[in-house]
């Protein structure tokens, strides 16, 4: 199919002898926002990690050639234990790439930290995540959860990806922060037309933001547009216990 960014076929993932994902097949096209829904333990995070190439799998995962992926992980509980400025956190980006091939540095110049102690293009990235340059000198541990989540998004953006993978970006953020992170996602989507894969529990995001949703519980239970995501499908997904609270299609 044209404009295909990601094609997954018969994906199986087994960890410690336990089947986590069974026979997943789906396709993502450029500019889509795919939300991945499912109860706890459904394998949502595992799916993202497998797509990133972190976990072993069987089957086929085909990314479009030359595609760059930005990953925003679920939680980083330990980062606040480390005395580190925002700028230094960005300098950790691409440490491995630098080592592999110094000539790629020129390409990375468009990213946030091409060289040690030299932050070029930082303004642009910070602007796109709605933060000012003064935040670079701040200590990571002193940021609010909303600011920190923005920094994580900026970190993923700094290698100029075309695809963004988000693992529950709203978890642990207060309502105001959630709203602002959500607005950020929408703005990024509008301005740069990223392809986004998003794991979430937040159904309001699905209805406002997603182009497609994938209901996952080890297997794919449904793959549809948000409009087709009916109460029956959701209760099937979450085991019938969920009270459905927002469903506004006419």
């Amino acid at each position, binding site marked *: 199919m044209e404009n295909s960014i990601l094609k997954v076929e018969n994906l199986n993932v087994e960890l410690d002898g336990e089947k986590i994902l069974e026979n997943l097949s789906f396709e993502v096209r450029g500019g889509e926002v795919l939300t991945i829904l499912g109860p706890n333990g459904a394998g949502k995070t595992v799916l993202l990690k497998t797509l*990133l190439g972190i976990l072993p799998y069987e089957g086929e995962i085909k990314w479009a050639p030359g595609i760059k992926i930005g990953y925003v992980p679920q939680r980083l509980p330990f980062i606040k234990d*480390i*005395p580190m*400025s925002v700028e*230094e956190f960005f300098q*950790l980006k691409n440490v491995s790439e630098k080592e*592999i091939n110094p000539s790629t540095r020129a390409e990375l110049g468009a990213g946030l930290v091409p060289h040690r102690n030299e932050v070029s293009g930082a303004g642009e990235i910070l602007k796109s995540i709605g933060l000012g340059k003064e935040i670079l000198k701040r200590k990571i541990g002193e940021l609010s959860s909303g600011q920190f989540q923005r920094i994580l998004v900026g970190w993923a953006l700094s290698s100029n990806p075309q695809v963004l993978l988000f693992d529950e970006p709203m978890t642990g953020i207060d309502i105001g922060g959630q709203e602002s992170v959500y607005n950020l996602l929408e703005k990024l989507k509008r301005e740069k037309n990223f392809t986004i894969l998003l794991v979430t529990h937040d159904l309001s995001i699905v209805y406002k933001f997603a182009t497609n949703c994938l209901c996952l519980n080890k297997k794919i239970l449904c793959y549809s547009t948000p409009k087709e995501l009916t109460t029956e499908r959701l209760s099937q997904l979450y085991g019938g216990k969920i009270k459905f609270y927002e469903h506004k299609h006419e």
Partner: protein
Amino acid sequence: MNSQFFLSLISGIFIGGVAGYLGSLMLTKRMALVGDALGHVALPGMGLALLFGFNVSIGAFLFLLLGIFLIWLFEIKTSLPMEALVGIVFVASLAIGFLIVPEPELLEALLGDISKVSFEMAITSVIFSLLIFFVIKRIYPKMILTNISEDLAKSEGIKVKKENFIYLLSIAAMVALGVKIVGSLLVGALVIIPAATARNLSKNLKEYSLGSIVLGILSCLFGSLLFKITHLPAGPLIILFSTLFFLISLIFKR
């Protein structure tokens, strides 16, 4: 200042500095007590070295490798937490150490002795300290990212297992050097207290890692000088200076 003391001082300063540097990495990995445990794992090796008259660091290093290998092996065989496995290996080593180290040497192995540093030992200490320093410097940003999130590190293409292995070898080498200065009982403190102090005082990584090095050096310097004056054992003096800096840092904590 006689040349013997000068050699001790040089060894102490180099080992103290690199111990602080490595400690700053260990603290971010929440491995504060691993240095302690490994210090004890080194004991039987040190005992054998003292018995047969070879360099205690070599004996210590060999037993550390064995200890780390056993911990790694146990980790594959059981699902017990790393902490428990380290605990088992370290008390077993301690028991073996007490049995095979003859009594007069036992105290030296436990507390270290900087008064007997030969010229060759000083040179090897400096060389190995520098070597460990550059290895750590190389893996530092990658380890920090790994400590923040292994997934994030892997998604950046960092080979976490390889870096971890290099990191563990560095710890083993560091402990092997450190036991000579402060002995197996106190080597954990040599590694971790400067980092803890630096963390209280620093607002970014640069200050933190540099601070750990400087505090490690200062502790060894002042401890050794006080040893020269009082002739009390140097190891405990070094650690007490380190602790003093930590207490002071509580006042200026940022």
